[in-house]
């Protein structure tokens, strides 16, 4: 019983992380039709900022907001420099562009820092375990769950309550109409990337807290998770992205617990195969809710 409860806790905390990842990817896709393959690198940027700041002795209370801020700015910069020239181009051109940006960033980390993984000093309390109802919950996982809930609520309030949030939701359905209402396209797109970057920054904190290392390709597995979760939940729906994140986490934890030893290594292959199945059965799943591009 305790084992299952433990696994559920694992899945919930992992699900929260994947949900945030899927959201960060989905919010840009909703509006631009762009699957940002360089999204993982935004998380990596946040991770490397933490590495530099914490390594230099900057206190946690300063390093964390700084990391999120840099990731936000990186997202804005990415949009302005890399994606604006191809705005409105075909889906595949956008894909290729984001691929190229991803490669540039990964290799830049390689050159600027090191090809090897770098340890990030995490505070001692972050590795502790808290006892809740007899189950040992690692502090990091608890924090992840709390942060996830906070982010989801914050995003919900923002998208429902603020003018620009409503504009973004409208843009996901009909960007042209939004512009006809007098709202600048650039502003909507910038906000989308800003939110995407902010989420990436928050995710980088959570990931580095759990793993304690940064390396140039750390964004790649994260991107895969984000992508799979978003496709499973239905790209084009933010609620779907969240649902997809939790679904993916439960599938992963479930497979981890039930697959025979030899098949565990292929777990990711199974999951990607599911993605292809989803695409085949419901290719409009990729476009559901995405009716018009800028």
């Amino acid at each position, binding site marked *: 019983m305790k084992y299952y409860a433990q696994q559920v806790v694992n899945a919930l905390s992992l699900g929260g992380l994947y949900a945030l990842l899927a959201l960060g990817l989905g919010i840009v896709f909703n509006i631009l039709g762009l699957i940002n393959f360089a999204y993982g690198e935004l998380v990596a940027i946040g991770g490397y900022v933490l590495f530099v700041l914490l390594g230099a002795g900057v206190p946690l209370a300063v390093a964390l907001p700084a990391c999120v801020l840099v990731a936000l700015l990186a997202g804005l910069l990415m949009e302005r420099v890399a994606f604006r020239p191809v705005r409105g181009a075909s889906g*595949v051109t956008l894909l290729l*562009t984001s691929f190229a940006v991803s490669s*540039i960033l990964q290799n830049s980390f390689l050159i600027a820092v090191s*090809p090897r993984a770098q340890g990030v000093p995490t505070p001692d309390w972050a590795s502790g375990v808290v006892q809740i109802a007899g189950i040992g919950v690692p502090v990091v996982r608890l924090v992840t769950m709390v942060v996830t809930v906070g982010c989801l609520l914050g995003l919900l309030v923002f998208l429902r309550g603020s003018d620009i949030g409503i504009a973004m939701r409208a843009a996901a359905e009909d960007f042209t109409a939004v512009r006809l209402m007098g709202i600048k396209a650039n502003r909507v797109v910038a906000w989308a990337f800003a939110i995407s970057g902010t989420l990436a920054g928050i995710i980088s904190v959570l990931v580095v807290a759990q793993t304690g290392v940064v390396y140039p390709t750390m964004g790649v597995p994260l991107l895969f998770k984000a992508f799979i979760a978003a496709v499973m939940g239905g790209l084009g729906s933010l609620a779907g992205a969240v649902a997809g994140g939790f679904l993916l986490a439960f599938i992963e934890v479930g497979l981890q617990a039930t697959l025979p030893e030899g098949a565990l290594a292929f777990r990711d292959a199974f999951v990607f*195969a599911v993605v292809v199945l989803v695409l085949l059965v419901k*290719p409009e799943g990729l476009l559901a809710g995405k009716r018009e591009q800028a």
Partner: protein
Amino acid sequence: MSGRSNSWVRSAVLGGGTIASLLVVGATLLAVTGGPVMDRRVSLLCINLLVVLGLQTFTGNSGIVSFGHVAFMAIGAYASALLTIAPSIKMAALPDLPTLVAQSQLGFVVAMVIAIALVALIALAVGTPLVRLSGSAGAIATFALLVIVNVVLSGWTGVTGGRRALYGMPGHASTTWAIVFAAVAVLGVRVFRDSPLGLQLRASQDDEVAAEAMGVAVRRGRLIAWVLSAVLAGLAGVLFAHFVAAFSPQQFFLAETITTLAMLIVGGMRTVSGAVLGAVVLYIASEVLRGVESATAGVAGLPGLFGLAQIVIALVLLLVLYLRPQGLWGRWEINESAQRALRRRSTNSLRTVRPSHLD
């Protein structure tokens, strides 16, 4: 109009033959006069060119960008390697190999044929559902293929050695093989492009619905192009496996995918001339940059700027996507441009009044 039925063959052979000949002459000269380093570079260029030609066959004609062809390169490489490595190594390092494979050691040609047959079968199996997807969905499915193959090869440690380098392949792939295969592929891909099937596929790229309405069997055409292109990539993999001392799954993943895609798109994905141009230009650029990478190693106590070549390749890809999406070469194949220029000149000299849309 009687010449139309085989004029495309003449045009294709002329154009493809020109490039193939240039390739053979240039590559042979370089390989013979440049010493072992240049010889090696020529081989690697031809191997990459085979992948790019495969990409041109599928992506250039159907319009669906494939991120997955390097997966077929991997399958070809591993299949051929596992068939040709000495049994003593296989028994020691790869315990889960089927006994038949583990205890045998086939010749290079036989192994190549079997490996390519395997690639073709897998391509057929994977392609049949995949060709139903267009545009972004198709591209993403090919990306999933790349990841799945990479995960399987990395995880199946008992059969492939997993992430560890696989070694012991007899080095049979000489530069001659590479050049000959590349040249024949250039000709073949050009013939395919100009054939009625290739033409129909390219029509579907412009307007899938209209093409189907005209009777084009789009899915069947895509599947044929997919299998042919996979075979080319698999062949490249086989040559690669016997060219290097050791390889691992990571060599057939994101870096190689971006490099070969960049070569195709920078050169121009619609034409074979473009594919060859892109491969040659980007390969030269990456070799020069790799020289820079090593040259900067140790300067001012810095490690080398490793990764610079990849960055520049990606930057060039971005620039082309922004400024000249049709690629450096553009729309017309090498002999088509020449014919158009000749025709224009002859009509000008006659000074007849022709409606401009006939040119």
